[in-house]
């Protein structure tokens, strides 16, 4: 990339950042509305939770009361959040943001790992189908991926766990397997990544999209020119046929994968955001679930931002649009 290209790219990126900020604002508003409309006034609970100590809370309540009008509530809640104060968990009393970010890291690992697994499986099938069309090899694989995508991920989880514990005897589920448990404990962390990667339902869509896009690109005039001059087709096609579609579909599937993470974390007892969300929903722990909703949205938008960056970096025309 040349130096002269950097300025327009920076302009486009700042535009993307602005849009992201606007969207996150909208996200906060949606969450606010849901909580505000719910019976039982969780909002005041939230606002109170955002105040620092119990005494301060009690004292402030006497003096100021919880603000009455909805926009005032929204504003004070939003300002507190922007300062990092997401309130405290009803159940544990711990500050929400810190807790969510702590487990959020585990979920991030799970999510990104599973995306890699999905890509490792989907990309070869898609590229092969784009190059060779539907044939004896690509069709069964594609069909198989459709079936796998419809698998309920929780059930897949059980199968995998069963297989690993009973057949391979690798797990610390039964005490006394200490030596092999040490050796293979790390393998256990790979399992949920593997399960989510296969079971999140996105494999068939990734294959389909990537295959269609790469197929379309391969039929373009400039690829014909590349072939005519004896150049490597991949070298010319990968930007439009691989990089852009892959980042596009993965970014669009992040919400879906996060949803799957909720279930997988349940099955494997993985201490992530998803499990925390489930617990919070059970306990009606509004601050926590709200914090998770917002942080998830942030993840999603970050993924979208990343995709925009790739698009702009690859496409010389993007900076002019």
């Amino acid at each position, binding site marked *: 990339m040349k130096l002269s290209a950097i300025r327009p790219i920076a302009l486009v990126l700042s535009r993307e950042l602005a849009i992201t900020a606007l969207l996150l604002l909208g996200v906060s508003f949606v969450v606010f509305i849901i909580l505000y409309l719910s019976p039982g006034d969780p909002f005041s609970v939230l606002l109170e939770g955002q105040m620092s100590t119990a005494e301060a809370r009690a004292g402030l309540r006497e003096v100021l009361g919880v603000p009455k009008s909805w926009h005032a509530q929204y504003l004070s809640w939003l300002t507190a959040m922007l300062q990092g104060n997401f309130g405290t968990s009803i159940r544990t009393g711990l500050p929400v943001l810190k807790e969510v970010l702590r487990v959020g890291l585990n979920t991030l690992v799970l999510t990104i790992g599973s995306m890699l697994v999905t890509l490792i499986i989907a990309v070869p099938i898609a590229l092969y189908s784009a190059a060779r069309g539907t044939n004896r090899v690509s069709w069964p694989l594609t069909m198989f991926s459709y079936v796998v995508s419809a698998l309920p991920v929780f059930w897949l989880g059980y199968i995998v766990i069963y297989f690993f514990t009973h057949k391979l005897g690798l797990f610390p589920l039964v005490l006394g397997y200490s030596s092999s448990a040490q050796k293979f404990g790390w393998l256990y962390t790979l399992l949920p990544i593997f399960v989510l990667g296969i079971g999140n339902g996105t494999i068939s869509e990734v294959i389909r999209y990537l295959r269609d896009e790469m197929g379309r690109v391969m039929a373009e005039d400039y690829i014909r020119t590349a072939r005519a001059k004896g150049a490597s087709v991949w070298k010319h096609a990968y930007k439009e046929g691989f990089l852009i579609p892959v980042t596009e579909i993965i970014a669009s599937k992040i*919400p879906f994968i996060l949803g799957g993470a909720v279930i997988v974390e349940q099955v494997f007892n993985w201490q992530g955001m998803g499990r925390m969300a489930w617990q919070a929903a059970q306990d009606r722990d509004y601050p926590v679930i709200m914090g998770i909703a917002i942080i998830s949205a942030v993840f999603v938008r970050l993924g979208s931002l990343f995709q925009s960056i790739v698009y702009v970096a690859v496409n010389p025309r993007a900076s002019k649009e």
Partner: protein
Amino acid sequence: MKSYTQISGEIGDLSELPFWKKTDVVDLVYVGYGLFIVTLVVFSYILGTFNLLPRDPQEIDLELMIAPPGTTGHLLGTDFMGRDILSRLIVGIQAYFLPGLLAVFIALFFGTILGVLAGYRGGRFETAITYVTNLVDSFPRLVLILLVIAAFKPNIYYIMIVVGLTNVPVVSSHIRGKIHFLKQKNFVEAGVSLGLPTRTIILKHILWHNCRSLLIIQATIGMAEAILMETSLSYLGFGVQEPTPSWGNMVQAGANYFMQGKFWLSTAPALSILFTILGFHLLGDGLNNILEGKRGK
């Protein structure tokens, strides 16, 4: 080795060929399987509503616990309380059938309205709707639903409304895209210059003739998602509660027994989920290829 044969005699025109010769066998298989599943689901739903079941799904038989499939009187065996699995599976459809239809209806209805507004009016409308679309897409659906559950009751109908609403942007963007496409082809201009009365009639032309297949396909996708959502929620314990069966909570209940090597309790409902969702997906895919003519080499 690929073989090509030319038919002898007169070479006809495409439109003369009967429907089944024009399409790919694969798509016909997809659609066939999909329709089979849909019929099965509807049929089972009706059976369930009128209680025409092989056995009482709640009937406990402690003498016959975890019987394998094929045991007399229990085609698919029994669960850990001796209850007939087949009957419970059939009743389980009740948990997602109507709520699923609700989700699909909401998605299609509002999605179409918004899509038409965005595509037809364009301008600020379109920007606003794009914004809302991106906004809704920012949430993982399950997390949003958990938020709704925490704030309100875990009522499946509320939840399906949310599912439907989250699908509205997808539907509307497809419709909007279609309208742009038609605009590009001067289709809309032609209609206007022909002096076709109100937009209502143009909408009939756009929607009925051109978006029909799109909507049907979105309906299948939407239903598949609704089923997945309901089963996931009841698996997590937020849907239908015991002893009422739902495919999700049946898998959950069977989990312990799975680890003991008794797979069937969880597997029967899991396979039902698998084949049903697959059915809707393939139906949508097959219809997409047939109606939108994407295949053909």
